[in-house]
């Protein structure tokens, strides 16, 4: 059991080290998030009330797109340098490898994007009472994005231009996360009573994908390694 935990920890640690040394992937995701959110008010004009109304939706949609940018690379680098084969023959079942890599993806993408969201909220005139809920909903929702995304990353591993395919595959699966994430933020300002149920469903989606997505991703990886 301890060998299992050690291998799991080591894999996450290495992915964090690689992401840190690489820098580029996170930089691109954060940069993309900033650019999309700042371009939007330029497109629709300086109507502060309108911006405040669409802010939760914009922040969530742009976050999903930014996370999607790096999802496609989750397993690709390991496949190209041969690490994936060794990981597959190691002490960790492939399901745990997929879970560790999803978790590392969340730590290096979902978490930084969540931290950036309130800053971008300022640009969109997000009402003050919504900030806490914005961060909370993203903290609860983004793990589901990384874990569900692992399925798409594994399925498109050997396809050329997998990045486009993964968007087509995964964006529909992110719709529930998107809807309830936005509802939760809206609930904080409109007092619509949707706040708690939305957060609960968001948590349920994340927990379910935490458990189930690695199984699906591992099945796809096994197929890809054949």
């Amino acid at each position, binding site marked *: 059991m301890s*060998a299992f935990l*050690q*291998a799991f*920890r*080591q*894999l996450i*640690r*290495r992915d964090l*080290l*690689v992401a840190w*040394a*690489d820098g580029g992937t996170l930089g691109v995701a954060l940069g993309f998030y900033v650019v999309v959110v700042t371009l939007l008010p330029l497109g629709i004009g300086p109507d502060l009330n309108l911006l405040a109304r669409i802010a939760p939706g914009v922040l969530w949609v742009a976050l999903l797109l930014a996370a999607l940018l790096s999802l496609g690379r989750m397993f690709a*680098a390991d496949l*190209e*340098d*041969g*690490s994936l*084969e*060794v*990981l*597959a*023959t*190691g*002490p*960790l079942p492939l399901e745990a490898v997929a879970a560790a890599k999803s978790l590392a993806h969340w730590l290096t993408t979902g978490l930084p994007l969540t931290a950036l969201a309130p800053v971008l909220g300022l640009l969109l005139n997000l009402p003050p009472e919504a900030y806490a809920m914005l961060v909370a909903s993203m903290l609860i929702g983004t793990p589901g994005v990384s874990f569900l995304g692992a399925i798409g990353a594994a399925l498109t591993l050997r396809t050329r231009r997998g990045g486009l395919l993964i968007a087509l595959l995964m964006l529909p699966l992110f719709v529930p996360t998107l809807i309830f994430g936005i509802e939760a933020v809206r609930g904080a300002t409109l007092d619509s009573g949707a706040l708690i149920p939305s957060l609960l469903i968001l948590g349920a989606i994340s927990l379910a994908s935490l458990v189930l997505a690695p199984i699906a991703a591992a099945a796809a990886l096994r197929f890809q*390694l*054949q």
Partner: protein
Amino acid sequence: MKLVSDALTSVRGGRTLFMGLSFAVDGGEALLLTGPNGAGKTTLIRTIAGLFAPAAGRVRLDGGDPERSVAEQCHYVGHLNAIKGNLSVEENAAFWNGFLGGHADRVAAALAAFGLDALGDVPAAYLSAGQKRRLGLARILLAERPVWLLDEPTVSLDATAQDMLGRAVDNHMAAGGVVVAATHVPLPIGSARELRLGQATEVA
């Protein structure tokens, strides 16, 4: 300790690469897989490593740990080196050491055995092809595994490095380990049996 292939059949892309292949490698023995390109050397090694599912037959390890699969008791070194260019030599070695469950004090010894001890801080991307191969091979010394599966281990290695590999393999065999290596050149090791894989059968 005995690695047994029991009537192994492998079909890749509609071609039967080998059929009913049975052999056994005892502890302390090395089996060299030879044969022309496309004969199925890599396929056989990957099948033993559990990466390819055989069409029929099975591989087992007699006298191994019954609670772990054959794959988990193997070191697999394929054509790719499984190293990250933006991590240092030592970070790469330390990761595989920790992941594969080896003692932390093995890192320095493994790097030294392949002549990489002076390059510990160098990012792996700056290594030459031969040095990268050495780092990929150093993995076999980072954790204890009874079976070593080496696919063309000598590619881009100079004579010195081939001797280092030969010494590592000899030590492993002396300790009762099993080695299966696919190779086109003779390895500088004490003794070895040879399994010549034939020409692949015609496309159906």
